[in-house]
């Protein structure tokens, strides 16, 4: 021992070792950089020496410096030298340095392959171990490929120490070199039953990680894992196995049933919180997100573990004093909330308690949870609690977070949960008292939104805003509060715009023209000035009615006195508006002096009510006839002459007539019917509630609103703005209102019962109030989705080609709430005798019923449609056992169907989106599928999620940030009898093969007293045809194309087709997106182009089709599809 110390100090006499370096750095705190640069120079010298011990010492020091952030990539080769030392001491240091310093771009890694291979097969297990450990950090695809075999051999090494390392590192190898998975898998599977628990656990680890990426390949291992799960006592292994089952169960629902028992046992018996957490998490969460969100719902059902059990366990976690458990409990709770809101809502008290926690991250989690927990019933209560916390909160960030959450909670889904908007306005006003918040603009936009959309609230809102304006000095008095003065923007605008509701417009006008206003930010001043003018108009109107004309003149004088202040403003907007209005008022004053009545004319300036407009409203405006939005205003320089000419195709002459959009002609009767249906729909729609004018009256008499003393003391301390109502009183009032409503309901109920003289109605009058019973006091105009005036679903598909434009108008009139009638009417080429939906659809009843009607319909349309080359269809798609949903898809023809065993029939028409026929290659991989969802049942459908299992080739485009298995939320809800269209964009890599994508639609069916999750499975069929775009081509260009020799040839015989030749052509045009290039007697050449620019040329004769294409696979598939089309007739 002593000798070794001596030996160590002798070493130190010559070289600085690591300890010296560390100590040196600590002693040179002032000039660390300089000291290290001298050290690096020394190291460079040491590396030049031949002595491997010196080199290893230098490399060891470099590893330390690397951690401190110094670049040591220059020494990579020296590291390799040390790695290849035969002495374990140095080898270990070398590999450590490599694992810390090397990454994929390090070029010397190439040199290490043989050395590593040698070490892997070393008789010394620690040599092998050190090489494996190092390799796990810097394995590159090349290394993985070259060493996969060696590592695979090591998986059966005699020493468990090596086996376990080899198994673990195989995972890294699979990631870098996926081809190695197949040959290595049997051996990996074998390792699951290795006698050594360490190796076994490593194998479980690796398979679990692999299964997370691609679960379906590992289903066959389920029995083995099941055995392991019931026998293992190692928590580490159990956690991995549970994770694995979480990934497998969605694919094999039967597993769920088997898992109930062991999982429940684990949940009850385990003392390890990590395992308990994993069980709860997996059962209700992991499977809910990836890999298949839609199926996870069924997992919960299959597992049929009562959510209460898990929620109870989570409650224990949340109640624990350990912050970590509390946090995780809340996190897990928020995920259960998504699927089982009811069972979480009962723990509201606990969540609210967490708002008091000293840990901010726990408070934020609790806030997130609250967002999802609110209902009409508890919104006021929750917000009241939150308001208390706002007052208590320390630190502006958390308080701002609270503020935004309050607003989020209240405004979610179009103010769905707010039953009393006066309460909400007063909450907003109370929030303005917050000190130093950055979210003034948020409050302001809410105020504006509510005042505009909830008409019944305007009177109240205006009164509140007038008070705010009067007390503006309280908001702006302190410089810290500048963020909140944004609220004044909203207040001024609301008071101006809805000035007819003002109690005392004169007072407000004076408040808006105070000199202090000039200290506000420019954009707010501008609004002040403009709205002062609106107020002025209102004041004039009221004053001119009186006999006293001096009052009106005094008002004008006030304006003339105060406005110059704004004319001088440095802000251009303020200046411009002020000078305009000043001149106007001066002119008015002149007229007044001549005793001319001006009020009418002045108010005409601001006449007209401002109505909310849906963001998508523009889409609803029909394009006027003759206006072609896509045509060039100035013809761009031509790029290729051949495409600029008009095609000489046979259908070309007739085309212009039909290329304009057709609009549905509806007679008065039809309109009246629709109106009636719409009313019906609105009555059923919970979001469309008629205003109840009575409620407003009651509250306007609320005490203290009208006469507000103006306190002209500038207080820097935040005060309660006098006279503003407290939101709390509304909680009480609301309670009373609800009670009244309930009482009335009961009365009605009783009456009914009396009439019926039967006691059956009993279930209604007792029990807790359900969500639906609570009627809002005010109505919100919801205009985000559909304008209510439009019961006709219309959509335009613009297909723009370079030389001409065809607009196809898809429309369907649908008498609402009349499910017996034909739900959709399809326009299609008359030559198509029957839609495949009809003839292939033996299982569903509905299409058969409609087919006779449809035929009639078709005849009518026949002439109109006959020569439309590009036409569209709307097809009835699905009728399940439940008749909940009808999915209709519209688009270019390319009709496909598939019948599923569950008797659900689907039909999807992928609609290829075309912007420019020149083949914008960036867009060449996108396909848009538009789906019309129609609710055929009597229940309300919501939370629809559309999900498609991506294939390697086709992927559903999801918004950024969402995982590859997340479903897309359909952005609307469906009241009974309503339909709506949603579009989904798919990215398709290769278009040469047809594709079927499996998908699921999940949704919640909401009845009066229950809501259930439902799902529909479907398949999306992308045919090759749907990737083709009708493209005109000219005979000379066509000839050139054929001559070029780039095209591969193929042909198909049409047997048993006996239809006129032009029908045959029309059918190919219609169904397969071809255009005719030239036709000579019973022989025609046709052309089409794929979205990725493949040319497809056909030579069609009565009995056969010869075809050429630059992509033989695509061609083969298109021909198959054509053949299919003809075999169906």
């Amino acid at each position, binding site marked *: 021992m002593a000798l070794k110390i001596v030996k160590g100090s002798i070493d130190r006499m010559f070289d600085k070792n*690591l300890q010296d370096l560390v*100590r040196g750095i600590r002693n040179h705190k002032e000039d660390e950089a300089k000291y290290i640069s001298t050290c690096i120079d020394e190291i460079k010298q040491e590396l030049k020496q031949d002595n491997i011990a010196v080199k290893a010492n230098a490399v060891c020091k470099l*590893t330390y410096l690397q951690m401190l952030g110094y670049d040591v*990539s220059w020494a990579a080769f020296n590291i390799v030298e040390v790695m290849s030392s035969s002495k374990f001491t140095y080898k*270990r240091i070398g590999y450590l340095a490599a694992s810390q310093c090397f990454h994929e771009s390090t070029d010397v890694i190439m040199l290490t392959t043989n050395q590593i291979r040698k070490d892997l097969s070393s008789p010394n297990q*620690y040599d092998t171990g050190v090489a494996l450990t190092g390799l796990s950090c810097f394995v590159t695809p090349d290394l993985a490929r070259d060493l996969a075999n060696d590592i695979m051999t090591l998986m059966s090494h005699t020493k468990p120490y090596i086996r376990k390392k080899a198994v673990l590192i195989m995972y890294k190898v699979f990631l870098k070199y996926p081809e190695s998975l197949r040959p290595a898998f049997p051996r990996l599977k074998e390792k699951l039953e290795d006698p050594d628990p*360490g190796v076994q656990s490593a194998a479980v680890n690796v398979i679990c990680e692999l299964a997370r990426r691609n679960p379906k390949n590992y289903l066959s291992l389920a029995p083995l894992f099941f055995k392991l799960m019931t026998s293992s006592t190692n928590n580490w292994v159990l956690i991995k196995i549970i994770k694995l089952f979480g990934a497998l169960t969605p694919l094999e629902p039967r597993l769920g049933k088997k898992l109930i028992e062991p999982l429940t046992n684990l949940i009850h018996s385990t003392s390890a919180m990590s395992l308990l*957490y994993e069980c709860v998490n997996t059962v209700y969460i992991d499977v809910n997100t990836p890999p298949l969100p839609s199926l996870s719902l069924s997992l919960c059902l299959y597992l049929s573990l009562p959510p209460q059990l898990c929620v109870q366990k989570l409650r224990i976690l949340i109640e624990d004093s350990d912050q*970590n458990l509390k946090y995780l409990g809340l996190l897990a709770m928020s995920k259960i909330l998504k699927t089982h809101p009811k069972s979480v809502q009962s723990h509201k008290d606990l969540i609210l308690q967490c708002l008091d926690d000293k840990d901010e991250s726990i408070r934020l989690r609790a806030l997130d949870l609250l967002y999802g927990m609110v209902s009409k019933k508890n919104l006021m209560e929750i917000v009241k609690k939150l308001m208390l916390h706002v007052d208590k909160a320390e630190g502006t960030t958390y308080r701002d977070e609270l503020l935004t959450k309050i607003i989020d909670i209240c405004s979610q889904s179009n103010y769905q949960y707010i039953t009393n908007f006066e309460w909400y306005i007063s909450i907003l006003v109370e929030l303005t008292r917050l000190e130093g918040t950055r979210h003034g603009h948020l409050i302001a936009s809410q105020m504006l939104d509510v005042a505009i959309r909830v008409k019944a609230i305007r009177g109240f809102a205006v009164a509140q805003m007038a008070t705010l304006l009067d007390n503006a000095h309280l908001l702006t008095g302190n410089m810290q509060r500048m963020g909140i003065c944004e609220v004044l923007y909203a207040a001024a605008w609301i008071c101006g715009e809805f000035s007819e509701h003002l109690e005392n417009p004169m007072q407000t006008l004076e408040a808006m023209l105070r000199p202090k206003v000039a200290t506000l930010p420019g954009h707010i001043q501008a609004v002040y000035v403009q709205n002062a003018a609106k107020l002025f108009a209102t004041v004039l109107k009221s004053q001119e009615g009186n006999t006293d004309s001096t009052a009106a003149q005094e008002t004008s004088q006030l304006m003339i006195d105060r406005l110059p202040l704004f004319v001088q403003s440095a802000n251009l907007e303020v200046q411009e508006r002020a000078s305009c209005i000043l001149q106007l008022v001066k002119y008015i004053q002149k007229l007044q002096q001549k005793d001319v009545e001006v009020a009418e004319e002045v108010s005409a300036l601001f006449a007209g009510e401002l109505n909310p407009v849906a963001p998508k409203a523009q889409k609803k405006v029909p394009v006027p006839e003759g206006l072609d939005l896509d045509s060039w205003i100035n013809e761009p320089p031509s790029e290729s002459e051949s495409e600029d000419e008009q095609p000489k195709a046979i259908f070309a002459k007739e085309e212009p007539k039909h290329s304009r959009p057709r609009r549905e002609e509806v007679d008065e009767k039809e309109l009246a019917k629709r109106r009636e249906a719409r009313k019906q729909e609105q009555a059923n729609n919970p979001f469309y509630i008629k205003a109840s004018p009575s409620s407003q009256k009651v509250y306007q008499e609320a005490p203290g609103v009208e006469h507000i003393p103006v306190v002209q003391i500038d207080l820097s301390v935040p005060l309660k703005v006098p006279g503003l109502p407290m939101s709390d009183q509304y909680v009480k009032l609301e309670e009373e209102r609800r009670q009244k409503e309930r009482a009335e309901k009961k009365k009605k109920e009783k009456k009914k019962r009396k009439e019926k003289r039967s006691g059956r109605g009993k279930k209604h009058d007792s029990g807790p109030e359900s969500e639906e019973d609570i009627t809002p006091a005010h109505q919100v105009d919801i205009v985000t989705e559909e304008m209510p005036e439009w019961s006709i679903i219309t959509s335009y598909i613009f297909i723009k080609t370079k030389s001409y434009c065809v607009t196809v108008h898809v429309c369907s009139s649908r008498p609402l709430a009349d499910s017996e009638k034909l739900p959709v009417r399809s326009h299609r080429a008359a030559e198509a005798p029957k839609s495949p939906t009809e003839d292939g659809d033996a299982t569903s009843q509905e299409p058969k019923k409609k087919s006779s009607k449809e035929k009639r319909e078709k005849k009518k349309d026949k002439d109109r449609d006959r020569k439309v080359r590009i036409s569209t269809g709307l097809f009835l798609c699905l009728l399940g056992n439940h008749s909940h949903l009808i999915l209709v898809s519209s688009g270019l023809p390319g009709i496909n169907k598939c019948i599923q065993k569950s008797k659900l029939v689907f039909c999807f028409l992928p609609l290829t989106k075309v912007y420019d026929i020149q083949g914008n290659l960036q867009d060449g991989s996108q396909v848009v599928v538009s789906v019309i969802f129609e609710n055929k049942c009597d229940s309300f459908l919501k939370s629809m999620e559309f999900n498609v299992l991506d294939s390697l080739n086709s992927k559903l485009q999801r918004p950024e940030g969402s995982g590859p298995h997340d479903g897309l939320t359909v952005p609307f809800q469906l009241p009974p009898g309503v339909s709506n269209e949603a579009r989904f964009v798919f990215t398709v890599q290769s278009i040469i093969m047809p594709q079927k994508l499996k998908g699921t639609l999940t949704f919640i069916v909401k009845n009066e007293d229950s809501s259930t999750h439902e799902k529909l499975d479907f398949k999306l069929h992308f045919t090759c045809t749907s990737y083709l775009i009708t493209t005109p081509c000219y005979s000379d260009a066509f000839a050139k194309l054929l001559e070029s020799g780039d095209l591969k040839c193929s042909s198909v015989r049409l047997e048993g087709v006996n239809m006129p030749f032009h029908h045959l052509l029309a059918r190919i045009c219609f169904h397969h997106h071809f255009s005719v290039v030239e036709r000579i007697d019973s022989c025609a050449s046709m052309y089409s182009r794929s979205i990725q620019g493949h040319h497809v040329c056909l030579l069609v004769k009565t009995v056969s089709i010869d075809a050429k294409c630059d992509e033989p696979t695509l061609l083969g598939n298109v021909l198959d599809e054509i053949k299919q089309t003809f075999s169906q007739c």
Partner: protein
Amino acid sequence: MQFMLLFSRQGKLRLQKWYVPLSDKERKKISRDLVQTILARKPKMCSFLEWRDLKIVYKRYASLYFCCAVEDQDNELITLEIIHRYVELLDKYFGSVCELDIIFNFEKAYFILDEFLLGGEAQETSKKNVLKAIEQADLLQEFNIGTFKEIKIFLLGEI
């Protein structure tokens, strides 16, 4: 697990292990950001935070912060257990470990970590086995932790 960092209360990095390939620049940026974020947290706060798309699990032992980054589906509690296990291992190996042990013997700290975790996954859940493997390897390296312990006493006196 994506990576593990050890750093002091002053924000000095003491150990870093990356299980995902990242360039030096990215590594530096990530560790700088994380160290700042974690040091800013109050002592009473829980050990988890969401950071970018990762979950960060950290725990403070005396003057050292141990911090791991795991993926979304990973179990936070078991990660915490991994950290604790590692600290126990260091403690057993060095004999009541302190920050200085890791500074002066940082390669040993790495060796222990490498015996415990491989490629970001726990490879050995038995503490005994890990220590045994380390001792055996040390024997091969002609290094004896006992020697070091004597040096440590000497060093501690010096600083």
